[in-house]
């Protein structure tokens, strides 16, 4: 046992020894001051004829300790207001507060970044990368989003992540975590273990990845995902796709978006416009449930976004959802705003 522990410690030390020296920012104006970042947005939705208003603010707090340790957290304040009588009457509702993550990162070296605290579960493409309000091309989350993100979308415990292999042609990235069961208000999590690995081919702009999770609470089930992201060279196109599998269902989504920069007329106007489309389908297994539909669902969505600047964006989308025996439309209209505010000045 002692030999094993010693061996594990030696391996960890040899991996972490790397470049734990100070960041080499000589010749740059990069500063390491605390930052208040995040986004706010306002989305007016009509789903199946029921209008709702969803104002949101998602502040992100970043506090660096030198250039190798970072404290970061993100909180979501989301209002959900709908008419008293469904499609008529005044709007009523409440504001929900969610702590997405509160974590401490040690940027030890390229290969290992230990993370501790409450973190977003690294499962598939959506949860960690595409979910933020100011990044999502369409505001409706995929139908199978809860596969691999149950129960709160976050885990509490340790996580390791980093770049396993780095070459001029491709990178292999990984995340591995263990989350404990936690009932503390705003920090709820389930007992899970899992990981994610992806290979990114730099010249091709192609990423292929997969995620695995073992849900270890009362119901022990496996969740898995495979995903692909591709940005073709010389074409302003972005394609992302994911297939998820769980005990209670499986599904896929494929999303494509393109900046209309190649429109030959009114170039200044169209280069800020983004066309988005997504197709997705879900198939329940073993009765579905656990945050997933209990019937088969198919949804198609198209959207048009307009970037006023780097930070302001107007969003709009229309979708049609096909359930067994109940089809309806989904409309979204609104805006998002991203902000980055340095707090204080850097000591020279």
């Amino acid at each position: 046992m002692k030999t094993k522990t010693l061996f594990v410690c030696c391996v960890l030390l040899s991996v972490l020894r790397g470049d734990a020296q100070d960041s080499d920012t000589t010749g740059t104006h990069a500063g390491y001051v605390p930052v208040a970042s995040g986004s706010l947005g306002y989305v007016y939705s009509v789903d199946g004829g029921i209008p709702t208003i969803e104002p949101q603010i998602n502040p992100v707090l970043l506090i660096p300790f030198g250039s190798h340790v970072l404290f970061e957290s993100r909180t979501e304040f989301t209002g959900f207001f709908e008419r008293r009588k469904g499609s008529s009457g005044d709007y009523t509702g409440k504001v929900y507060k969610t702590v997405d993550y509160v974590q401490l990162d040690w940027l030890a070296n390229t290969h290992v970044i230990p993370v501790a605290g409450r973190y977003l579960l690294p499962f598939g493409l959506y949860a960690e990368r595409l979910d933020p309000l100011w990044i999502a091309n369409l505001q409706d989350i995929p139908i199978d989003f809860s596969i691999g993100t149950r129960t709160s979308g976050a885990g509490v415990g340790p996580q390791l992540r980093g770049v396993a292999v780095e070459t001029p042609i491709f990178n292999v990235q990984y995340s591995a975590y263990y989350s404990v069961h936690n009932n503390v208000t705003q920090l709820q999590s389930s007992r899970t273990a899992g990981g994610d690995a992806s290979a990114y081919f730099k010249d091709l702009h192609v990423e292929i990845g997969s995620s695995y999770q073992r849900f270890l609470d009362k119901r022990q089930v496996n969740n898995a995902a495979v995903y692909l992201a591709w940005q073709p060279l010389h074409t302003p196109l972005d394609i992302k796709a994911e297939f998820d599998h769980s005990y209670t269902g499986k599904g896929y989504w494929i999303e494509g978006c393109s900046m209309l920069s190649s429109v030959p007329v009114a170039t200044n106007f169209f280069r800020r416009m983004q066309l988005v489309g997504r197709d997705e389908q879900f198939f329940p297994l073993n009765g579905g449930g656990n945050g997933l539909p209990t019937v088969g669902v198919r949804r198609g969505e198209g959207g048009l976004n307009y970037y006023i600047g780097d930070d302001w964006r107007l969003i709009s989308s229309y979708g049609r959802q096909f359930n067994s025996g109940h089809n309806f439309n989904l409309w979204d209209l609104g805006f998002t705003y991203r902000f980055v505010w340095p707090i204080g000045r850097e000591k020279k």
Partner: protein
Amino acid sequence: MQIPRNKPGAALCTAILASFLWIASVIAPLIAQQPSQKQKEILTPEQRGERVFANNCARCHRPPMTIPPQATGTIIMHMRVRARLSRQEEQDLLRYLAP
């Protein structure tokens, strides 16, 4: 209620993990040994940073980004964790975004 173990799911997961390990251990070193055009190129740190931005950041963020210089180091630390960037990529980005 006791849910039976989902053996088909486990088999799928095992297959996915096995295929990744295979890619990482067999295919990747073979590709890495091939001399590429990229290895012959000599780029300035700013050009490398621009390439890192195009390869990684631009997949979710629209260039150009307006980040105050004094916050750039912090933001890139955050993105290095989130996007699993290497240390070299972090350094190149710093030179590109806050030269």
